[in-house]
């Protein structure tokens, strides 16, 4: 008899919520695995993790993880996460978001959270499409790609989210793909360990919508497509902009260390009040 293979990370899941709602071939599982791997290799304890997400397929991840999780409104996850983290800096706040959630409806929150360098670890699963609503183009959809709202092919230019977040001032930024699970896990580990705003873009596949609409019918086709278009940051630096147009540039986009928000606000409070931050004070009688 063949023994059933159980994922070593299954212990982190809310068993009672399985099976999950992700489609066959979806990249979310690979990113979740990379997250748990990165977490185990990081200095962070699973018990200290709380998760926040917005709306979309990627944002359903925290609902399956056995920790406190806040599933919020579309695009606004980073604002809720900012409140949780500043309200109780002892929490290790991890945000799961997607390309539509973070770069379209939540774009302003994304760049401002990066500017503030608020101490969050953000994992953005970028599948270049709106999966939950049925395959509409997103701000990262490549020019010429097809979606249910781009039946003639998209005529717009896509965002490069990681570069935007880096330019906005995040401490740690990386991009990897579901075809690079080890590197992705390593980046998540680094992100969890660093102070300030950490942003890990995980380029992923959506066979159900992106694949079907773009003649990449199987998950393998999508993996190969991602692999073929991937180029390391080091190589990309020597290439012309036009050569890079359809490339997925992977690697670390580390910023010179900037001040992180939690430490700055803690210092402010201590300076002004002479005492510690008032965490969980809603449960306390006032003096």
């Amino acid at each position, binding site marked *: 008899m063949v023994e059933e293979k159980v994922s070593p990370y299954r212990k982190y899941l*809310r068993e009672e919520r399985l099976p999950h709602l992700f489609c066959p071939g979806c990249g979310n599982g690979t990113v979740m695995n990379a997250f748990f791997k990165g977490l185990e290799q990081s200095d962070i304890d699973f018990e200290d993790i709380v998760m926040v997400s917005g709306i979309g397929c990627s944002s359903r991840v925290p609902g399956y993880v056995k920790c*406190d999780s806040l599933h919020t409104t579309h695009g*606004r996850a980073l604002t*809720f996460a900012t409140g949780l983290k500043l309200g*109780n800096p002892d929490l290790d706040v991890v945000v799961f978001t997607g390309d539509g959630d973070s770069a379209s409806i939540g774009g302003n929150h994304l760049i401002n959270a990066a500017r503030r360098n608020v101490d969050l670890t953000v994992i953005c699963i970028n599948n270049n499409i709106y999966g939950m609503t049925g395959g509409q183009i997103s701000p990262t959809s490549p020019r010429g790609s097809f979606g249910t709202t781009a039946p003639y092919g998209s005529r717009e230019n896509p965002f490069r989210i990681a570069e935007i977040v880096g330019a906005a001032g995040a401490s740690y930024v990386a991009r990897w793909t579901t075809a690079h699970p080890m590197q992705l896990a390593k980046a998540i580990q680094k992100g969890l360990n660093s102070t300030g705003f950490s942003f890990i873009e995980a380029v992923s596949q959506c066979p159900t919508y992106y694949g079907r609409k773009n003649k990449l019918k199987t998950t393998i086709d999508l993996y190969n497509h991602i692999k073929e278009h991937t180029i390391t940051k080091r190589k990309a630096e020597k290439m012309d902009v036009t050569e890079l147009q359809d490339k997925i540039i992977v690697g670390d986009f580390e910023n010179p260390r900037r001040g992180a928000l939690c430490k700055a606000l803690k210092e402010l409070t201590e300076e002004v009040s002479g005492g510690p931050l008032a965490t969980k004070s*809603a449960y306390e009688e006032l003096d």
Partner: protein
Amino acid sequence: MVEEQFVLGNEACALGAIAAGCRFFAGYPITPSTEIAEKMSYLLPKYGGTFIQMEDEIASIGTIIGASWSGLKTMTATSGPGISLMQENIGYGFITETPMVIVNVQRGSPSTAQPTMSAQADMMQVRWGSHGDYEPIALAPSSVQEFFDFTIEAFNLAEKYRLPVTILADEVVGHMREKLIIPDKVNIVTRTRPELTDDYLPFDAPENGTTPMPAFGEGYNIHVTGLTHDKRGYPDTNNPETHHNLIKRLCDKVLANRADICSIKKEFCDDADIIIVSCGSPYRSVGAAIKMAREEGIKVGSLKINTPWPFPEEEIKSIANDVDNIIVPEMNLGQMVHEVERVVAGKANVHLIGKIGGVLHKPEEILEKIKEIHEGEC
């Protein structure tokens, strides 16, 4: 020690928030509410609290919801345009039962309209602004003292019933200076932690009620979502019964407790032939109008609504049995008057004095309506 100050209404609101235990504020500058954010940015660090200026009002309300789940009492302040932006997350606050206080210092509307002028433009937006069925709690101060007192009450109601509570102030109350008496000790409601058992259900609340709120990071492992959820907090969006039971309970926890929540003030009503029903700033002109009317032999009384939401139905119904004419002065073209008419249901004549433009009703304007009604009756 009781303390006396001569302060701006918006500052009194900030002082009330601190007294109520608010230790987190997120906001975005907007006239005529900005002094609340300014005062909070000054006060909060002194009390170990956190102030943050966000990138917009949507971010502000998201942030105070997050901070509320971290275990803090939280507040934001804005005006009409900001309230419009916040509506989606206000609905999130209702469905997730998140306590927080939203201050709306109302101004001339719609759109950008009159930033520095007063109005009661959002009485109905606060009631119906977010999509779906929900029952809000709102308090409307008419003086600097009430702005302080009602802010404390707003925090207490938010904690007791676990929902967003709005303070429906306006530019007049926000920007005037008056004497404020800060009492020695104020009654405040503190959160209690739920008991963590093996079969703990974070949203298993009694009928017409709510349940203690845990803080994130203490091992409760709760899932909080804006989706229709079961008692465990897990999404159960296609089950009509789950949705019905959840939304019905969220509404009933307010409606069934009207007697505890609703607050009114009745004056000169015992012998009155006409009663003026006011809410917020217009009340300031009511007293003088009544005095002038009574000097001319017309018996007029006042019913001031402190809590426009939930609407004090019983109290308004009862005055309709006593008088034939009710006057409703509002700084809009008629919002709360519809509620008065609905409840009175034809038992008395309801007369609106709707005034827009940004300036409070003069007592003479109210007197004029009183005389018009009186002469018509004679």
